[in-house]
């Protein structure tokens, strides 16, 4: 078994504790409620290389002319642009030494890690833990483009971990461009991002995922928001054999706005699973969640959206919507909205729909001379475009749009 070799790796005390937690639980199986559709049991059969330090050169999929460039290649982080004033990128240990007050609060952050053994695996094995530190009042007018690439010649398990820290009043646009370049080898890409958004800070976060069929990508994005802050999150899952996105928002201050946008277009033999949590812990906050999926070929999708409204979180507005189109008879979508509301003065709504394209709309379009396949494509592109159009960086919007359009057209044979 692949995990057997983990026992022989020598680790420091804290990392060993994390490793012990992982080994006690193992890879998730579908006996775990949170992994009902998404067993990772087969990862036990792969002879993983757990230490991926070599880093060949990689070509970025995405180019944004104005962006600052940083890169994670096989788990190794590097900075490729001169950083402007007000932002620093450094190792977690060095950051912790300079920010004891932050760390004092940070260690109590307490994200929901139940049934998440991969987080422990990441903590045990990750060799670099970078901090992107945006200092108080710094408004970065250029986006940071983080190119995250796996490119390996043997089956590899890759861990990486980033902390983004936005101090009071800071503003950042972060673009996560995730991909695997090697299509012939199995890859386990296990990626943890923890994001701390202080008072009145603002973050736009766009994540694109474009992985090979043999890639298993586990994403843990945990966002902690303080008062008067705003986060606009986008997750575009374009390709990937197995993608699991754990996206958590912990709302720890008042007057917070959290926007979660997601789009997934799994194709043949692909599995994309979006598990989101919005945890409203303080009053007068708003969250808007809009997820859309087009399921092609024999793909499977999962949307599990949890919203907690804790007893203190009066006057919460929490909205959730997940809409899916099954583009083929062989595609499957599993949706599960979960609302736990403990406060009485709140507005919450949720709705999930999964269906086929409207026959009425198709006939209307065909009656104007548009072929059935072209009409379907047009309707699906319109369906997904509503999420894509919310992205404000033109090159990024075009790149996402082109990749999504190409994938849908290819699947429909137009």
């Amino acid at each position, binding site marked *: 078994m692949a995990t057997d070799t983990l026992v022989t790796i020598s680790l420091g005390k804290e990392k060993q504790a994390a490793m012990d937690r992982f080994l006690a639980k193992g890879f998730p199986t579908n006996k775990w409620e949170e992994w009902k559709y998404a067993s990772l049991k087969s990862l036990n059969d792969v002879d993983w290389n757990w230490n991926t330090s070599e880093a060949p050169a990689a070509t970025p999929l995405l180019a944004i002319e104005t962006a600052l460039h940083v890169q994670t290649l096989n788990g190794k982080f590097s900075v490729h642009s001169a950083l402007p004033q007000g932002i620093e990128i450094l190792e977690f240990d060095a950051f912790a030494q300079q920010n004891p007050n932050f760390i004092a609060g940070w260690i109590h952050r307490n994200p929901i890690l139940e049934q998440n053994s991969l987080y422990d695996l990441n903590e045990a094995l990750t060799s670099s833990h970078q901090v992107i530190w945006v200092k108080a009042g710094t408004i970065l007018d250029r986006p940071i483009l983080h190119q995250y690439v796996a490119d390996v010649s043997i089956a590899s398990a890759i861990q990486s971990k980033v902390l983004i820290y936005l101090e009071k009043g800071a503003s950042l646009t972060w673009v996560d461009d995730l991909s695997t370049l090697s299509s012939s080898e199995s890859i386990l890409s296990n990626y943890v991002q923890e994001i701390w958004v202080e008072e009145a800070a603002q973050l736009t976060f766009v994540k694109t995922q474009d992985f090979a069929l043999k890639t298993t990508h586990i994403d843990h994005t945990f966002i902690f928001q303080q008062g008067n802050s705003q986060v606009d999150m986008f997750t575009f899952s374009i390709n990937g054999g197995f993608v699991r996105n754990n996206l958590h928002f912990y709302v720890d201050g008042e007057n917070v706005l959290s926007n979660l946008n997601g789009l997934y277009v799994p194709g043949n033999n692909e599995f994309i699973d979006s598990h989101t949590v919005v945890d409203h812990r303080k009053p007068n906050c708003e969250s808007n969640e809009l997820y859309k999926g087009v399921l092609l070929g024999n793909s499977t999708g999962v949307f599990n959206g949890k919203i907690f409204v804790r007893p203190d979180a009066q006057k919460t507005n929490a909205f959730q919507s997940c809409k899916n189109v099954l583009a083929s008879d062989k595609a499957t979508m599993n949706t599960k909205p979960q609302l736990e509301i403990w406060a009485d003065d709140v507005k919450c709504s949720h709705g999930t729909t999964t269906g086929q394209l409207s026959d009425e709309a198709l006939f209307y379009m065909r009656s*104007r001379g548009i072929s059935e396949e072209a009409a379907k494509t047009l309707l699906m592109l*319109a369906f997904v475009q509503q999420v894509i159009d919310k992205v404000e960086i033109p090159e990024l919007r075009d790149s996402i749009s082109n990749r999504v359009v190409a994938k849908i057209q290819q699947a429909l044979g137009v």
Partner: protein
Amino acid sequence: MLSIKNLHARIGEKEILRGINLEVKAGEVHAIMGPNGSGKSTLASVLAGREHYEVTDGSVDFLGKDLLDLAPEARAAEGVFLAFQYPVEIPGVSTTNFMKSAVNEIRKYRGEEALDAVQFLKMFKEKMAYVNIDQSLLSRSLNEGFSGGEKKRNEIFQMAVLNPKLAILDETDSGLDIDALRIVAEGVNKLKSPDNATIVVTHYQRLLDYIVPDFVHVLYKGRIVKSGTKELALELEEKGYDWIISALVD
């Protein structure tokens, strides 16, 4: 141009068209009238190729082609246009993009070169004048949040762009106030030529004050039970349908 012979159609087990016969020549305007449930909209839908109706008997010849044998998109490319009673809302697709796709697909069917952006711009500008429609409406999602009048004007704009040989207007007057009705009717009249024909399906005579028919047919229980000239429509307006129906019983 259009020759319908003994057309029977049903939906599920219910027979709705029970032997329609109709000849339409180029340059003519035909009005199909009749009480609710007589099969007027079914006839329009069957001609455009809506799939949930099953044609059980009869034939439809359109310019020498068997219309019933063609897919809806092929009928459009051959020159049939249906203005919908309830135009469908299509979020995320603008009218201009919709019409660009339609025009170029039809041109492809006919073996013609695709139009480019400049040619479209020029054509749209010209056609917009027919129904006094605004550019901003055409840039919005097709029919989404449009008023009844805007939807119908948009239908006639599409008709102007596609320039059909046979236009079928299905209850185009429903939901329109008198000003909108006039604008829509004027658009239809401007598009009339000796080479094309129009079938107006309507419940009320009102629309026929503006789009003057050469022939009026009364449809009842799936058959054309009376045909006449425009005076028949006025008579129906005055006396209702009962006198025709009771004459049938006798």
